[in-house]
């Protein structure tokens, strides 16, 4: 994958490319859920989201919506790492998701 817009969490990828997303909480219980192309799941501690890029019928992007909640009122965070991203250290593109409050992050991967 390559970064199209880091801040907007937009990426480019090729059909058949494997993507993995890992999450590490700090100072909070891991309260993470995600919706990948309309299908919703819980993400348990230590689990990794893995999927293979494919072109969608409508030509839209692969859409990964992640929801992060926190149990520490004084502040906590998640480290979210996307692999494999060209040009990033260790091919991992890292985001920090701080809270509270509840955070929603929308990752879009445009497949060519």
């Amino acid at each position: 994958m390559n970064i199209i817009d880091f801040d907007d969490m937009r990426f480019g990828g090729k059909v058949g490319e494997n993507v993995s997303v890992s999450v590490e909480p700090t100072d909070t219980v891991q309260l993470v859920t995600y919706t990948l192309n309309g299908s919703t799941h819980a993400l348990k501690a230590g689990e990794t989201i893995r999927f293979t890029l494919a072109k969608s019928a409508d030509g839209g992007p692969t859409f990964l919506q992640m929801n992060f909640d926190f149990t520490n009122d004084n502040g906590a965070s998640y480290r979210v790492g996307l692999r494999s991203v060209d040009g990033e250290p260790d091919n991992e593109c890292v985001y920090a998701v701080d809270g509270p409050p509840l955070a929603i992050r929308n990752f879009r991967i445009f497949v060519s």
Partner: protein
Amino acid sequence: MKTKVVKILLVALVFTVMPVANVRSQGTLSSEDQIKQYRQDLRALAARTPPPEAQEAHRKALWQLRWQLYTLLQQKIGALKKDIQDLRSSTSSAESAEYVKQLQSVLTDVEAEAQTLSRDLTGSAPPTAVAVAQAPQQPPSDSTPTPTPVPPAESDAQTSVLAAASNFSAEALRDAAAPPEVGESELPASECNEAGLPTAATRSQYDLSVCRMAKNVITNVRGTPRILISRDQANLFSILIAKLLKTRGGESYVAFITEAQEARIDQQIGAAPSTAAATSIVSKGGVPYLLGFAVENGAAQQSQNDTTLTFRFNPAGVIKLFEKKGFIDGFQETENDAVMKVLRKTSVGLSFDTGRGSTPGVFTGQRQQLSAISAQVEFINERDPRNKKYEKEWEQFVANEGVELARKIWASTIATFKFSDNSPMTFKDPALQAWLEQTNQLIAGIDAGTVGVAKINEIARIIRKQADLLPVNLVSDETVASVTSFAKQFQAYSEKKDELLDKIAKGKIFSLDYLNKREVNAPDTSSFNFIAATGTGAKVDLTANGSFTFYHQRPAAASPTSARPGRMRDFQFAGQVDVPFKVGESQFDFWFSGRYERLMEDATTAMGTTMPGTKGDIAVGQFGLNIPIKSLGIKFPVSFTFANRTELVKEKEIRGNFGFTFNWDTLFSRLKPF
């Protein structure tokens, strides 16, 4: 021409009203019947080719039907998954396994149908023209042009929304905002700290969202600082709930977002109970993270009035502080360090008596004013949500309430935003998008010299001001419906989460307090106090103490003929019941407590004189109330103490105390002096 316009309006009206009529006529239908009805209506409508004049209305009706059906299917998916999970964990027969298999098959079909609808919804155009047509008439104004009606979008591209949004002038958006008396916040705005959290001890979801979004705008960014829907969706939803639903229905959810949160009651902020100025007679478990600071007036246990400043801090936090780390960075790094993990369970307190020293009444922080050193170590703390004990419950919470909320978030995302093009996500409502663009322009205009926490607060100020100007009258009913739907689920989710956190807050705590009292003339003393705390099923916190105190050196005899007192000074037991309750949005804590003390030897005065005939039993009762002062992070404790005697005088005593406690974390986070 006139006839044609009337015809178009009639067709549009029919299609606009139809889904509402459907819903009303189906008021008594079960969810399953509603699903069937929506499927049938959807097939019937999709099979028709509308005349060009009614294409927009046709598309709107299709979109609404799909969204209603999608929402019901999501509910069905949730119910099916719960059934499957419950049956798998509670049954083992072949018959039930077969039934579960059947349920799984139904679930697969429903999920596939929901995914198809999700794709259709994502590819649908918004009912923008209707949204503008539904806006109330604006008063005529020479300087404020009426918003140009937005043409129907020709594609799903975000660029079409951006083009439509550019039609709105600042004045037009302002005119579409709620009246100031409705739109503006009633509560004083909290400042934000460098970590992106409100500085006020009591804060609402709305305050949290504003500060977090302000912090997000400038943190970990590689491009222009701006609000992005992809990153700030949850915070934007909070603003929409607080401002949009306040004027467009769903008001019950507004208070949920804007009301202040409850505070924890298990932190020992004030002076330890046996210091001169403590207002509580029982020590409580729990270690505040960085530094607790308290100034309390009055005396609970001794017959003297003075002012004591207590600094109570966590060594791990202070070590990081002196490494000049940021407030949150310091806290995070302690997680990966074994020594720091132990230190995190420890707190140390320093009490200064400002009545001492060369300038009485002025806090100098000099050695003479240091009246007590205390330390607290936690052995058991079941009040940490990360405790292994709660792992299963959190997993279940995420699997049920978390996933249900995630589905609603996804449904609301589809209904509220556009995202299929390779450009930033946009609102479907052009007016909301115009408002967002305007907000980002204001953020871009912040002086380049404004940095750090000042910049966060400047962005927060812009967001708050803009939130009050949200063009609520130009927002489509679909957006209102989707925000309401999210708010409803978010409230249900938060209530479940709070239930779990409340349960955890009643977990056991067992800790040891050490207190070294440094007297001016009398012998110094050391006390060891064992603290046990637990909650009950109700919202009540129970704390029990058991302690003993000894002199560092034996006090002088009361007279040349009397025996010199021994090293053991006293032992005591105490208990306290805390009952937190809310009045409006304010969190009060009522407590009552009792203490029994056996003075093993005659007491000594501050001057070191032993008072003959003072050894014996002391019984003390106390009740009090912590009164919060919102937004300042201050609690004002008032207490009344009844005793059969004091240490020095064998007479009954009734005393009222008052003071205030202040959470130093709040101030430190705001000032960051290092």
